[in-house]
């Protein structure tokens, strides 16, 4: 029988959160001072949680691998943040936001969590505005909204193309205020390498000081993971270079279950790969699809001429262009959800109609929009994105269509958490992208920022109190205890082992190889044979890695190769689990597309009878297959249906 209990409060969906808050235990202000909380990560979720918990009076220690909390990769989110404010009076409501999120996630998310997310979304906007986040405004001085990522209402608040940056700076400023007040202590340039459990509860962490290489021990009454997503398992992704799974993975190895690891989002509008030296991919905001039209040539001879640079894209007549999204999905056109748009691009490129020097790109054309709205209007909407594109590709989107191709962007999977955002380890919480909870098998645009901030500002500060209320008699922990000794020793041994393994190949090489396997077999489309092959290749890679990887320099100094070595070791293990998860899920849903399970028109075919569950994996040991647990998903409010965007 499953060990998973989501602990969803009783009562009607719309009243669960209120009921929970009314019934949860509180911690007296005098006792909060005696309680320590560790927060790992300073993105939207981590920074907002640390700031809010510090403000409540807890002693917070916050960790980030960056030199300052303001650099966490939430900063790169461009498009916007959803909220059910209904300011435009177009029929939005908490229920509709909830409904869209569940449907967009292809019915693989938990109703209660998503409804709560929709409920608190409005509070986020209020708080961010009060913090001074400069959201876009009308001439009236009031906030403006846009429709985003295929939503049929305008519920997205945005700050030009830099919404993530502005929201993160808001959370960072709140965090800075608490640091100045002394309630939060910042540990920057730290990698968190292990969790410490005492009597089965999360009681601390082992961190490596990236400047000195020192192994540090930190104890607390509860630990909050907010270390983001694991898209870098693909080597090339839109994640930051340092984004990693290590803190979450160390929790997994200590018993926290990892849910739906194979659910990755491939974002349709990224700048295509230029060559072998490519180190990361750059996302162009999805908002571009509001005005840009996606196409490839309809005739193979035009494809060839383009590739040989005999003609320019603009030379191809309207009738010879295949606006394949508009053709296949007349109702939504270019605004279909991300997974659908990505797969459609892959389908065209696989069929040989791709453009660009590599043949793996499609056009995103603004010529019509410029004609319709004027150059200036397009410039004010997308000017900074066009500029960014031009810097990277050296072509102006005003003159020639952009070229785009899908890239790994977000991971819906993550540590399994219950309604309180607690993992299967008591006292260990996971918030933001590093948990699995709200996006099902596919995340809608402008929902990641919403979830990160909802978790950090408005959910965790309540739910963690319910746990800590029982911990007020627990004294501060001694980091010289045997549990800490063991964990610290294990980390030191592991680092020594990697350092002394004495291979010839660099960490980056291994990472690149892993990425190729993942992208090939566990990317936009998956099939059983491919996944079996991937499993074999990754296991081989893991063995090879443990036999030897080349690490220059020393452990007790600033050494980026050591950082990467630990991260890549974890990515290899994670890759294996992702493949297993993709293999066990014999259906297609959202970002998970199994070629064996598709409709006659090539759309994802869900199997609700057998797979309407969350697949949570339990670690069984390094060379033992992980064990799958199922949390059956109950849909009481929403009737499951085939997603259709036609």
């Amino acid at each position, binding site marked *: 029988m499953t060990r998973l209990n989501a602990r969803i409060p009783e009562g009607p969906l719309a009243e669960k959160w209120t009921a929970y808050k009314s019934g949860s235990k509180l911690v007296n202000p005098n006792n909060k001072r005696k309680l320590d909380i560790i927060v790992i990560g300073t993105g939207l979720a981590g920074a907002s949680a640390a700031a*809010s918990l510090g403000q409540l009076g807890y002693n917070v220690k916050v960790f980030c691998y960056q030199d300052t909390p*303001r650099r966490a990769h939430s900063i790169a989110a461009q498009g916007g943040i959803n909220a059910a404010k209904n300011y435009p009076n177009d029929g939005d409501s908490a229920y509709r936001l909830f409904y869209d999120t569940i449907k967009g996630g292809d019915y693989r998310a938990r109703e209660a969590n998503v409804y709560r997310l929709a409920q608190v979304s409005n509070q986020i906007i209020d708080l961010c505005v009060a913090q001074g986040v400069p959201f876009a405004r009308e001439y009236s001085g009031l906030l403006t909204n846009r429709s985003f990522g295929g939503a049929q209402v305008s519920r997205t608040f945005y*700050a030009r193309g830099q919404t993530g940056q502005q929201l993160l700076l808001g959370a960072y400023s709140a965090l800075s205020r608490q640091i100045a007040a002394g309630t939060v202590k910042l540990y920057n340039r730290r990698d968190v390498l292990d969790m410490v459990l005492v009597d089965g509860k999360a009681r601390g962490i082992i961190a490596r000081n990236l400047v000195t290489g020192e192994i540090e021990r930190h104890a607390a009454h509860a630990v909050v993971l907010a270390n983001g997503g694991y898209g870098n398992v693909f080597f090339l992704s839109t994640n930051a270079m340092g984004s990693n799974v290590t803190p979450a993975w160390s929790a997994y190895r200590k018993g926290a279950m990892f849910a739906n690891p194979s659910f990755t989002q491939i974002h349709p509008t990224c700048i295509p790969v230029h060559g072998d030296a490519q180190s990361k991919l750059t996302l162009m905001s999805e908002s571009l699809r509001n005005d840009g039209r996606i196409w490839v040539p309809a005739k193979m001879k035009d494809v060839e001429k383009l590739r040989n640079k005999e003609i320019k894209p603009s030379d191809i007549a309207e009738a010879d262009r295949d606006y394949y999204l508009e053709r296949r999905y007349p109702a939504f056109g270019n605004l279909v959800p991300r997974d659908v748009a990505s797969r459609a691009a892959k389908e065209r490129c696989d069929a040989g109609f791709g453009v660009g020097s590599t043949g793996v790109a499609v056009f995103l054309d603004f010529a019509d929009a410029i004609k319709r709205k004027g150059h200036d209007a397009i410039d004010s909407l997308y000017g900074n994105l066009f500029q960014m594109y031009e810097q990277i590709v050296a072509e102006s989107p005003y003159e020639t269509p952009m070229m785009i191709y899908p890239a790994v962007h977000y991971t819906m999977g993550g540590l399994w958490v219950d309604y309180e955002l607690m993992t299967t380890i008591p006292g260990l919480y996971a918030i933001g992208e590093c948990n699995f909870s709200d996006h099902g098998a596919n995340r809608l645009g402008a929902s990641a920022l919403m979830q990160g901030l909802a978790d950090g500002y408005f959910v965790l500060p309540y739910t963690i109190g319910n746990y800590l209320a029982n911990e007020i008699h627990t004294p501060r922990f001694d980091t010289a205890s045997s549990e800490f000794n063991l964990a610290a020793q294990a980390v030191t041994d592991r680092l020594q082992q990697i350092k002394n393994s004495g291979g010839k190949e660099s960490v980056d090489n291994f990472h690149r190889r892993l990425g190729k396997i993942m992208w090939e077999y566990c990317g936009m489309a998956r099939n059983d044979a491919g996944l079996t092959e991937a499993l074999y290749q990754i296991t081989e890679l893991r063995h090879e890695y443990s036999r030897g990887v080349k690490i*220059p320099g020393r452990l007790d100094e600033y050494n980026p190769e050591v950082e990467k070595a630990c991260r890549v070791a974890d990515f290899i293990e994670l890759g294996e689990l992702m493949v297993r998860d993709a293999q066990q899920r014999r259906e297609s849903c959202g970002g998970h597309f199994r070629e064996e399970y598709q409709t006659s028109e090539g759309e994802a075919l869900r199997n609700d009878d057998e797979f309407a569950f969350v697949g949570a994996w339990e670690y069984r040991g390094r060379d033992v297959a992980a064990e799958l647990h199922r949390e059956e998903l109950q849909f009481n409010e929403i009737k499951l249906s085939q997603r259709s965007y036609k």
Partner: protein
Amino acid sequence: MNFTLKIWRQKNVTAKGEMVSYDVSGISPDSSFFEMLDTLNQKLITTDGDPVAFDHDCREGICGTCSLYINGRPHGPVKGVTTCQLHMRAFKDGDTIFIEPWRAKAFPVVRDLVVDRSALDKIIQAGGYVSVNTGGVPDANTIPVPKEKSDAAFDAATCIGCGACVAACSNAAAMLFIGAKVSHLALLPQGRVEAAKRVQNMVACMDELGFGNCSNTYACESDCPKGISVTNIARMNREFLGAKLFSEKEKVIKESL
């Protein structure tokens, strides 16, 4: 493309550093500057060399982590981009490229090209925020903000905190960085409430940290990857003088229960 690189190498904060010369070859003009350095590092790793440490993270020009002083300019020769968005096509084949860390007393070198910019965090901690708590705030639309003000605030708020302004300044001053934050918040009604206190605290903190003074050369604006204008410095000066001259003496109020 082939390049000769002259790179600052320094083991740690106390060690003596020096410029060391390296050659890289076969670089694609479409490579980013960091991909070029990645190529160098991979070569160094496989030949038992010591790879060059440099700060980088998002590689899309928004996180502000990257910090190279390239050929006498922070973030290199192209205007309005960070180092990670600099592409090798901006250089000529065979060029010699000088790569140095940001230089300022307030930014000690951690290793090679990596510097410690926590001084900028300290300035923000001194007051770069609106003192609101989570919860208990009014509905977002009860605070109207004139669009022009909101846009100007946004322009200032795009600062990515990379420190290029300090690196470019002949006096290693941080005035553009703090001017941007002071302006962002002073322009908005939400930030107006504690504007006088904020600017004084932030300036005092900046002075303590050992940054230089502004001599209005505007190198900061010219090399800011986000094009933040020096009008923000003027606004800060105005805010500061107004606060110093006209704010009332602070009263200590004891809140007894």
